[in-house]
């Protein structure tokens, strides 16, 4: 093993040279454009997935078999597929569109997958709410939709914050897969950069570190929120450690 390449300061300079920062500034501005795109895609996909996921979860929870079983098959089917496959398929299917902006199939693919996973998280959350809550609401004269919206869902969503944030972290990591269809997100910008400067190990480690810092911050936020919720509601819900490993 020859570590000269790893510690050679000339290879770290394009990113971290503080004495002559012109190259470093250009490098980070370049990376920053990719990071902005990554964050935009994450926010759009996360919001859309939350909306679609809630709808899917409610569809799966109905007792009407005509709606329940298709929803179940859709959710379980999409969850069983690799994200990269879904992104790739979406992109390949959209190739016939002219002037296709690459972020569109990427975001659609990510949303499809994340909606299915989110649907499962929300369904588990709704199911974990005591039946008594729904029975009491109905006994008070509230209809099922009103009871859902005003009584059940608010409680369920608060409980599901840690797994949802965990899925957000996974979503952020999955945006890097869009580079495979050519989207110029953060990781792709890093690749272009190291191909220009010839410092793959240094640049890749830095890129990995940035992802790690963002995600670690998100998981700290999640832990803090959960702590606050448990103190406020004086309950400890026995949720299994739902670490989203995708």
């Amino acid at each position, binding site marked *: *093993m*020859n*570590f000269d*390449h*790893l510690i050679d300061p000339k290879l770290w300079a394009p990113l971290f040279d503080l004495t002559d920062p012109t190259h470093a500034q250009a490098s980070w501005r370049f990376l920053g454009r990719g990071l902005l795109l990554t964050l935009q895609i994450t926010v759009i996909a996360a919001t859309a997935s939350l909306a679609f996921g809630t709808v899917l979860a409610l569809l799966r929870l109905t007792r009407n078999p005509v709606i329940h079983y298709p929803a179940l098959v859709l959710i*379980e*089917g999409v969850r*069983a*597929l*690799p*994200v*990269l*496959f879904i992104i*790739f*398929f979406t992109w*390949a*299917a959209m*190739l016939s569109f002219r002037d296709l902006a690459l972020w569109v199939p990427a975001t659609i693919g990510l949303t499809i997958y994340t909606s299915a996973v989110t649907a499962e998280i929300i369904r588990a959350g709704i199911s974990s709410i005591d039946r008594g809550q729904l029975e009491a609401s109905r006994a008070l004269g509230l209809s099922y939709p009103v009871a859902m919206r005003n009584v059940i869902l608010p409680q369920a969503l608060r409980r599901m914050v840690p797994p949802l944030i965990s899925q957000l*972290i996974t979503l952020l*990591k*999955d945006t*890097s*897969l869009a*580079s*495979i269809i050519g989207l110029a997100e953060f*990781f792709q910008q*890093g*690749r272009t950069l190291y191909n220009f400067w010839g410092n*793959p*190990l240094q640049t*890749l*480690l830095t*890129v*990995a*570190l940035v*992802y*790690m810092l963002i*995600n*670690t911050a998100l*998981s700290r936020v999640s832990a803090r929120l959960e702590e606050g919720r448990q103190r406020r509601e004086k309950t400890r819900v026995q949720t*299994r*450690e739902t*670490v989203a*490993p*995708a």
Partner: protein
Amino acid sequence: MKVVQDNLPLLLSGLGITAQLGALALLMALAAGTLVGVVRVLPVPGLPWLGAAYVEFFRNSPLLVQMFIWFFGLPTIGISLPPFWAAVTALGIYTSAFVAEVVRAGIQAVSRGHIEAARSMGLSYLQTLRHVVLPQAFSITIPPLGNLSIALAKNTSIASAIAVGDLLYQGELINARTFATYPVFLTVMALYLVVTVPMSWGVNLLEGRLVAYRR
């Protein structure tokens, strides 16, 4: 449809590579993950922090970036892995970070009373770990490990980015050659489902059995 028939052997060989990649990576993940998980609960100063750093880094950075580090980054310090083995290592180490967390949670779930009883009977810390804690932690960790295996099976698809001939890679190649996008990718989709759906049924069954046992 004829396209699929003609290319089915290629797709199946891709599936074979996916299976090998997954199995080897799983072994690595279980071995490394259990080690790191145990390290995180040892009373040695500094070790738990190292374990935490390992878990945070490999869990929170994307698998794709890690694969590129193992395949494109390491040659600069002299280690040149063939694509398949770079993929196995990247996938194995990435998943081991998740395994470590599951193992740690399982160990910490064993009630203190058992540990205290074992220690007061004269067993050393390591003996307690081996004879009292780990056997009980085992049944708690199995369902989460099952879910991690399913995720691992799906993550093998990322190896296609460094040109490992897995199922997705073969599908991409055939699509590029024949432009029969829907037949090819629907077949790839069916093959992935054939692998992962039974796995998740298996995990659900296992979960049911283990809960009954632990009562």
